[in-house]
């Protein structure tokens, strides 16, 4: 003989199961509605500056760029420092060059002067204070 399984009637489970299902459903439904209502009511309070709030996905994208920016900032700072040093050295060298040129001009004028004498020139060169500032020791 064939035994045919009759479809279970609706509400076939024990009553407590139905109550449990109802309670879970009601809790979730009320919780969801309550949460949505709360967020809706506090929308203004929650209006963050969008530029300041990052999702973690965005942060993952941004983090390598931040690291690169930090590196580049450090490089720029070092390059600025070295440029400042180079400028200072160049200015100092230019000042020395101007001084040396002026000294040479004065000596040339003195040597080419019709009244120049060897002693006078020696005197003038020995007394010239300008060469005392030169960095090299080859002036002696």
């Amino acid at each position, binding site marked *: 003989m064939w035994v045919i399984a009759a479809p*279970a*009637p*609706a*509400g*076939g*489970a*024990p009553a407590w*199961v*139905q109550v*449990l*299902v*109802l309670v*879970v*459903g009601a*809790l*979730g*439904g009320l*919780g*969801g*509605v309550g*949460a*949505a209502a*709360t*967020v*809706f009511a*506090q*929308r203004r*309070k*929650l*209006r*963050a*500056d*969008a530029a*300041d*709030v*990052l*999702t*973690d*996905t965005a*942060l993952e994208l941004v983090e390598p760029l931040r690291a690169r920016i930090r590196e580049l900032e450090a490089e720029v700072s070092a390059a600025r420092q070295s440029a400042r040093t180079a400028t200072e050295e160049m200015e100092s060298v230019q000042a020395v060059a101007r001084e040396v040129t002026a000294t040479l001009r004065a000596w040339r004028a003195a040597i080419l002067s019709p009244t120049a004498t060897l002693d006078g020139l020696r005197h003038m060169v020995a007394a010239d204070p300008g060469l005392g500032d030169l960095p090299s020791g080859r002036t002696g």
Partner: protein
Amino acid sequence: MIVATGRSPFEVTLFAAAAVAGAALFAAGTRPRSVVEAMPAIVQDVWQVALVVTGLVGLLGVYWRGELSTGLGVEMASLAGLGSATGMYAIALVAVSRSGAIAPVAFVAAVGVASWWRAAQIVRDLRRMARACSAGTTGGSDSD
């Protein structure tokens, strides 16, 4: 300040699966035996509608383009609905199939737990956002 996003493969897939499963049940005009046996007729209707609605609204919330807090609120409401619907289904499965449905119950219950977990995470993030907004800054120092 950092807010966890809902655009993870798990969450998006589960919302889509809920919507598709609910719609497919409507199209086929059938319902799982455990649901039929463990829920009153009206609750079955609500459960099935909840599957479709939470799935679609959840996807809407996850991909919300406007205010971040609004998107999170929509997502959280859907997660509460999805958590309840999967919880109800898990209870029905346990009540009707007992130990014969251990694996399905485990997976369905896991979806429910994950939904509530994520909803709690959103509540935490929204609280932090509210705190940061009332303090007038959302920058940096908020590490949690």
